[in-house]
Each structure stands twice: as structure tokens, then as C-alpha cells.
């Protein structure tokens, strides 16, 4: 069995943003040597998310707008205080909660060396507290 892990950096440029990871994921799978198995895409942060949707700008806008409606910026969140462990103010509760709604990973089957996904399925990295330099992992596990 092969297990190949790639840790990939990403500079986000806005407060909230969807970034298409699909080409990178396909490339990692193609170069992994895995013929049959599974690919896992995980974010390494708690104010970002990984999700899958149709890759259209209007849907991207709708998704971010929905998250803002579901988790508004001005509720009296308890996560609004100084974090001594970080030396920074924690004032980003909405970012954490929006990330929790979307989740931190997705996975797809890999068959005949290719990712098995629907033609409309785009894999997104979702920035919810940018801009920041972020990281995510793509892990391919399976048989040669």
C-alpha cells in the first residue's frame, strides 16, 4: 500500500474567499503512484474549511453570503477576548463557527489512478478569516 502526503501552502488575499484546489488535487493523485484507493483533502486551520460545490462564481458568492447570514458578525460570542497562549485578541468567533459548519475535509475515491468525481464537483479551500498564508494537506492512500 502507498500513502503519500503533501502539505501545500496557499496565500489567501481576502477576508473570505473560495479557492479552487481541484487541479492541485488531481495533480497530486496523478503523481502519487496510487491506482486504486482514496484521496483526502484537509485544511490545517480552524478558521478555514474544505468543501465541494459547483465551480460557479454566483454559487461562491451565495455560499459566503449564506454563511454570513447563518453566523452574523455581531452576536455576543464568548470567543471575544485576549488569548494569552497566542498573545493576540481572539475576535474571530464568526470565522471559527462558519468553518465548523462547512467542515475541514473532503475525500474522493481513486480508481485507475484518477479521482472519481462528478463533472460539476469543484474542490474548494474556503478562507474565512483572511488574508493569511494557509496550509492544507492532500493525502493519497491505496494500492499501486
Amino acid at each position: 500500500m502507498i500513502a503519500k502526503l503533501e502539505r501545500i501552502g496557499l496565500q489567501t488575499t481576502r477576508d473570505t474567499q473560495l479557492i479552487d484546489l481541484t487541479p492541485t488535487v488531481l495533480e497530486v493523485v496523478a503523481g502519487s503512484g496510487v491506482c486504486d484507493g482514496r484521496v483526502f483533502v484537509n485544511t490545517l486551520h480552524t478558521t478555514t474549511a474544505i468543501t465541494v460545490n459547483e465551480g460557479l462564481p454566483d454559487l461562491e458568492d451565495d455560499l459566503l453570503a449564506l454563511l454570513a447570514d447563518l453566523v452574523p458578525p455581531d452576536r455576543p460570542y464568548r470567543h471575544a477576548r485576549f488569548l494569552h497562549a497566542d498573545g493576540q485578541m481572539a475576535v474571530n468567533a464568526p470565522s471559527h463557527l462558519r468553518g465548523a459548519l462547512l467542515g475541514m475535509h473532503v475525500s474522493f475515491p481513486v480508481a485507475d489512478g484518477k479521482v472519481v468525481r462528478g463533472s460539476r464537483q469543484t474542490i474548494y479551500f474556503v478562507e474565512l478569516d483572511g488574508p493569511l498564508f494557509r496550509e492544507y494537506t492532500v493525502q493519497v492512500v491505496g494500492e499501486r
Partner: protein
Amino acid sequence: MTPAIDIHTHPLQIEELVRDDPALARAVREVFGLKMPAQPLRTFLLHMDAADIDRAVLLPIDCTTAHGCVIVSNEQIARLAEAEPRFIGFASVDPNLPDAPRALEHAVTSYGLRGLKLDPALQRFEIDDERHAFPVYARCAELDVPLLIHCGHTWSPVGRATLAHPLRLEAVVQAFPTLKIVIAHFGWPWVNEAVMLALRYPTVHLDTSILFSGTPSESIRQALTTTIGLDTLDRSLSRQVLFGSNYPRVDPKRVAWAIDDLGLRPALRQRIFRDNAADLLGLEEKRP
């Protein structure tokens, strides 16, 4: 809307700066108390974009005698400001060192730095110490550059807020009537005292980097709306309040949103976000 000038940022989370400077990395972590991983310089600029900030003042702190370190040197600030025209560099000198006035003059005349940052809580000097601090203020006034001074609460693990009471500036203001002073953080929790000085002395300014608990919106509303009152701000302090974020302790976009949440009239908003800082720093700008 005209982009803002951020009068209060610390270039402490810049990967390109701390990566090759272990002494700075230690000072940032143990003295300033910032423990988050560094980010590329580009992230700083993108943070400015996200908050609609055009230019940012970079503040160092010289803690040589108090803690054996500088939290970014004047040379490093000068290099950053030279490499990136959106940055405006301030100097810091240690008032406990006898050559502090000369070091300030060197930083201004040789490095082109445009102001002085002092932090009595971290640098451990008495604000109204005529023997040590006054010669620095005198040189600052002679050089005609503003002084931004930390006042009030400090998040540094080794900072002493008792040294940073804004009322101790009164003797300084009276001794140096031309010295332009910015009281950081509105001097919180001594907001009334800081505001009293600004009301009485037009050379005293206040920056908006107020955040003690809750969100920036809650902290700033508490200080500016509840404690001072927006009428007082508008009538008497409209030319003395400057936008400051205290990045990277706080995300600049959230401080900008917090000020927008106050619903200020456009002319006052413009003064706080940009014009007052442009005037203080002597930036040549045409006004509409």
C-alpha cells in the same frame, strides 16, 4: 472612500524579518508576548488591503536596558520602509541610555524615520522623568517629528502599566508645547484622563487601537460612545483622533469595521481614517 492611514502597527509577524533574526524572534515571543507563527510580508500588505488601509506606520520598541533587546531595530524599520512605500517608519530609542537623543536624531536624519515610538510600560522609564526622558522629548520636538507613546493597559507579559498612566504626560505637554503626541489605545483604561489631556492640549492626539475584551466593535463603542460620547468626539476632538489598529495584536479590518459601525458623519470619518494622520505626519496631500 479615501483609503486609511494606520498609525499603529508592529512589524513583528513578518517571516522575512524574524526568520533570520533569532534574537528578534525571542523578543517578539517573550518580551512583546506575541506567540503566533510569522506570516509572509505579503500577508501584512493584504491585511492592509482588506481593511482599505493605504499606508501603515511601523513601530519598533527599544528595550535595551529593560530587557536586553530591541523589538525590531530602527535599521530594520528603515529597510522595510525603503522597500515598501506603503510603510512609514518610526524610530524607537531607549530613554534610559544617555545617547538616546543622538540615536533619535540619527534615525530621523540618516534613516528617514518620521516619528518616535516610546513604550514606558515595556521600556521601564518614567514618562515625566526630567533627567532621562525629557532630553528625548526635547530632541523629538527639535526634529519636529511626532511622538507616539503607549499608555494604559499592556498585553506584554513583562510590561508594567503603572508606568504608562497618561496623566504623567501633562508635565511633558507643558514643557514641550510644540511636541506632537499620540496617546496610544486612548490610554485605556484611563480613557477619561487621556481625553482630558487631548481636550486641553491640541498637540495631544489619541489613536483608536482600543481593545480590552469583546470585539473591537464593542471596545471602541464602549470607549468612544459610552465613556466620551460621539458629540464630544465630533465637536472637540475631530482633528486629534487617528485610526490605529495595533496589528498584529488585532486584525486591522476588524478595527476599521468597528469605527464604521459608529456611524460617524463622513467628514469626521475621513479625518479619523486619514486626514489627521496625514496632517500629523506632514504628508503632502491635496484635500477636496
